[in-house]
């Protein structure tokens, strides 16, 4: 999750962002205080977490829930709150 940010000489002026889809490159995961940990054995793949996640950070693999994208998950806890089988725990982030 380390990234080298450009300096003032190289950045586009005025805060302009020249590429579309750039939010993928912005690692909001660094903001997290609590990290969602999913017990996939408990998970029933209802995908409500996927529907409710405000940051598109639920990873889906072959149509099934496969944990969180920690580069972008901000740790809001919505997935844990919505999970009907309590398969997601919010654990304090170790810094």
């Amino acid at each position, binding site marked *: 999750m380390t990234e080298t*940010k*450009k*300096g*003032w000489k190289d*950045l*586009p*002026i*005025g*805060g*302009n*962002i*020249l*590429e*579309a889809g*750039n939010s993928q490159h912005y690692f909001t995961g660094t903001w997290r205080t609590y990290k969602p940990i999913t017990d996939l054995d408990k998970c029933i793949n209802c995908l409500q977490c996927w529907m409710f996640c405000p940051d598109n950070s639920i990873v889906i693999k072959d149509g099934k829930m496969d944990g969180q994208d920690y580069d972008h998950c901000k740790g809001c806890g919505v997935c844990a709150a919505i999970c009907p089988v309590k398969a997601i725990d919010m654990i304090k982030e170790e810094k």
Partner: protein
Amino acid sequence: MGKYIALTGAESAAFAMKQINPDVVAAYPITPQTPVAMKFSEYVANGEVNTEYVTVESEHSAMSATVGAAAAGARAMTATASNGLALMWEIVYIASSMRLPILMAVVNRALSGPINIHGDHSDAMGARDSGWIQIFNENNQEVYDSFIMALRIAEHPDVLTPAMVCQDGFITSHSVENVMPLTNEQVQKFIGKKKFKGLITADKPFTMGPLDLQDYYFEHKKQQHEAMKKVFAVVEEVQNEYAKEFGRKYSVIEEYRTEDADTIIMGLNSVMGNVKTVVDSAREKGIKIGAVKPRFFRPFPVDYLRDLLPKFKAVVVLDRSDSFGAMPPLYSETLAALYGIENAPMIKGYIHGLGGRDTNLAMIETVVDNLQKLKDTGEGNLTFEYLGVRE
């Protein structure tokens, strides 16, 4: 070159805008700027320009619409004065931080209150940290020429920063003078096609004005800081080209009878006309006095002043605005520019003409007398006071 026509200062700004033929103008009337917007809207109504004129409901909207248009890639302009500029405040900063080369005619007027519609510089001086280029103009011809040159300066790829072209409310804006404009063809050739790209004119889509937090904002401010440092190089280039093409030579700091002067009076905008008249009469009495008129307040011509002012023994700085509880802007920044220079002149400041109070010849003659005392005895060095205020 055309021939002389009679224009007020406000009409000079509008006439320059007409010849530039901007894509978008959004302005809201406020005394004494109203005749700029009024005259320009006449040009629009008569089909003399291709401009989309947006009749907004306030100055906040005027600057917002101008920012929107410039962001889309349009040449966009507005005009305001006093409280109108104050109401724009939020968007004034956004225009410069988005690096949009907008031009704004500012007809300097006192800020309320108590309510006053006449000329002083408190409006523009309040905006001195907003990241705009500020050009101050003594007369109608200067307003006109500055407008044409300002476009080239603001749109220069090294600069891309908006510019205010200032003139004194009523004193300049409502006084008729002979102005020699260029022809439309000369103006169009001089300004050229715009090179900056906006959201609509760019080759591929991009995002403007996004959230810019602790991790990037600092770098973007540094870019603005650096762009301002490049302004005077561009100004010199544009001024030289203007002089070569049209025979009118401007400089960052205008000097009047300074060659053998040991004292000078310095100030901005219209008061310098009266100062020059008083310099002439003092010269007849054998006083070696001159006048120095910075045409730019932002960027502040620090290096120019550090070169120029040590030639004199004593300097008076006239400010047409106060900075309550501090030194007035032109005085304090001149002092700061001179710090640590060997042979720096003695310096005294006057706050004059607030709320449009006439700074007449007799008042400036008093200044000349005090300036000679300052030179001879050091009396009043490093002080500032109100000029001609009733006790």
